[in-house]
């Protein structure tokens, strides 16, 4: 038997913070690829501390629903899961390349495949593009469009910016959008000045956050000038300084995220059969978009 644990932050104050976690877990459940699928949280229940013992499977794949490698993925989650042998060096990562490491959870004697965060997986680039397609309702969006990937900024974690830049670079290499830029809330180049950084009239703005919340629903829309007051809402697209801003909201709410979770587990050796194809099929039925898998599961 194999189990999937999606490890997310959650919130004591905001009941919506866990919505994307539940939604993606349900998508994976429906593929039937895992005998058990469980959500686990730092701030909600089941807590990281208790989750592994609720599983019957001996093989457990833990995928952190976090954007970047850093404090949570390197310290908090492994510690709380009681992965005694854990050491960040085992990921052998430059900040965006963590894949997986196999360890024992000390309290339960199960094999844990501890995966890198969803945010740095290559498949995440597709999710950002998919987000642009969803918000413009155009499966071919690209020509004449600029794309801004927005992150929090360095703060205490330099890897957070690396993840943003990594995907921006990959999108640039796709040659699909006229321009692609990494912007930040707390450092240069700042999302406040988004229109300064683009020649194109149309700009899709995709925040690389897991859940919609204070930053994506209040801060960023106000900072970009989409609205005076977030409570009044904003238009999509909204006119700002002669540009049309297509603001997408948190990328983590995109249905295709379930696919990244599956790919992470498959990279760590999970047998997921044709689950990735099933998820893409399901989503393309919902959205009408043509979703081709970018990578074979397990490769």
């Amino acid at each position, binding site marked *: 038997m194999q189990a999937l644990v999606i490890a997310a932050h959650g*919130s*004591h*104050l*905001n*009941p919506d913070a866990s919505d994307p976690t*539940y939604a993606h877990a*349900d998508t994976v459940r429906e593929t039937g690829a895992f005998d058990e699928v469980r959500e686990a*949280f*730092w*701030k*909600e*229940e*089941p*807590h990281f*501390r*208790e*989750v592994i*013992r*609720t599983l*019957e499977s001996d093989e457990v794949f833990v995928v952190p629903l976090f954007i970047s490698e850093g*404090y949570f993925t390197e*310290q*908090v989650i492994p*510690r709380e899961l009681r992965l005694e042998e854990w050491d960040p060096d085992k990921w052998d990562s430059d900040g965006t390349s963590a894949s997986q490491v196999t360890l024992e959870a000390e*309290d339960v004697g199960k094999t844990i495949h501890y995966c890198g965060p969803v945010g740095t997986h290559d498949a995440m680039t597709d999710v950002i593009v998919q987000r642009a397609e969803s918000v413009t309702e155009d499966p071919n969006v690209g020509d004449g469009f600029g794309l801004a990937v927005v992150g929090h900024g360095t703060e205490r974690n330099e890897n957070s910016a690396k993840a943003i830049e990594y995907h921006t670079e990959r999108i640039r290499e796709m040659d699909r959008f006229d321009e692609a830029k990494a912007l930040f809330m707390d450092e240069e180049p700042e999302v406040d000045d988004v229109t300064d950084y683009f020649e194109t009239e149309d700009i899709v703005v995709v925040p690389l956050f897991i859940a919609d919340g204070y930053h994506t629903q209040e801060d960023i829309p106000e900072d970009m000038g989409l609205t005076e007051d977030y409570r009044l809402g904003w238009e999509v697209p909204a006119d700002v300084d002669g540009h049309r801003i297509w603001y997408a909201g948190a990328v983590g709410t995109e249905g295709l995220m379930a696919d990244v979770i599956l790919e992470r587990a498959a990279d760590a050796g999970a047998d997921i059969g044709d689950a990735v194809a099933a998820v893409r099929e399901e989503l393309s039925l919902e959205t009408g978009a043509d979703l081709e898998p970018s990578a074979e599961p397990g490769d």
Partner: protein
Amino acid sequence: MTTAPNHVEALLEAVDDGGAVAFDGLRIERAEDGYALETPDEEWTGLDADDLADALEPLSDYVTNWRYWQRAVGGEGTARRAFLRWCERAPLADVDGDDGDAETGAHPSVDEPLSVPERYAALREGLDREWGQLCLTARLVDDADDDPAGERVYDLWHVDDADSDLTQLEVYDDPRDAREISTYDEDGRYRPLKTAPTLPSGWAFTGLSGGELVETVEFFYPATVANWHRELRGTLDVDHWSETAERQTGIYDVLDEMPREAVEWMAEACCVDSQCLRRREWEFDEDEALDVDGGDGPFPCREPCSLVVAAARKWTILESEDEHTYELELTTSEYNQLAELIDAVAEGRTDEIREADVNDGANRFRARYLRAKRFDEEGDLEARRVDD
């Protein structure tokens, strides 16, 4: 419909494969002189295969009971199986699996087990159990449908709804709906602590399979089944306050500086039965119990939860402040009123105080009057620090 003879065949196959089957009072053994069959009430020996099949016919409850547990439920040694056995007061001896000891009878959640005929009688009526604020009913599936004989299904509702008619409740059959139901209390407020005794009523899950029941319960009260099972087997691992505090990093790094007595106040504030259905099993540390009682909650709490950890950070910071002496002008009634206000908020009583009940010190108009009279222009309580 799967008929009883098929169960008998499967049972006989199991006997032939293993030489014997012994389960919940039913015992069949293949001996030199034929089969031996035994229940708590009767005994046969020297049966040939046909005789055995005939003898089993009036024992169909034993046969379908064997089928349900050994074929449909399976999972020997798992928490899921133990929990489902507990639901119908079946003997829990096999919760130990291979390596456990036999202390299980002593657990407060465990009643005298029922024999197979007793259980079947109860299951035909529906056998009720309470799990926190949940009422669980195990029952036999009506023979009319496609389910094999002896199949159990489970219903689940709020204990407050145990006597309600189903038509008055919102009925669900997908375990995942439990997530939504348990997110908010009756007043629509977010419940970050799943074991807070504030689960709203008015809903029911019906016709769940055993696996679905456990899943649903786990969405309402995450990890309670696993920890109950560990407690039952005497293998519950407890992380006491000091270990939990020392483990913390980042903004919670300060936790190990929380004064000893503040840990007591915190346990008294958060971990009592009125606030949490978990029974606090953690103490200050392994050798030093807290004075505050852990409560009588049905679920063991094996370490401070994330809510308590987050609150502890706040209290650790607050406790690092120095104390001062203040002087303020209050009438005796106003002084008493301050105590009443704190008490009303701490007990979550403010919503219950009637608009016009001016006898209650925590009445809103009384509080507003006090504020109007005793607060200065900045909105602060008028007081003077006198110790410097």
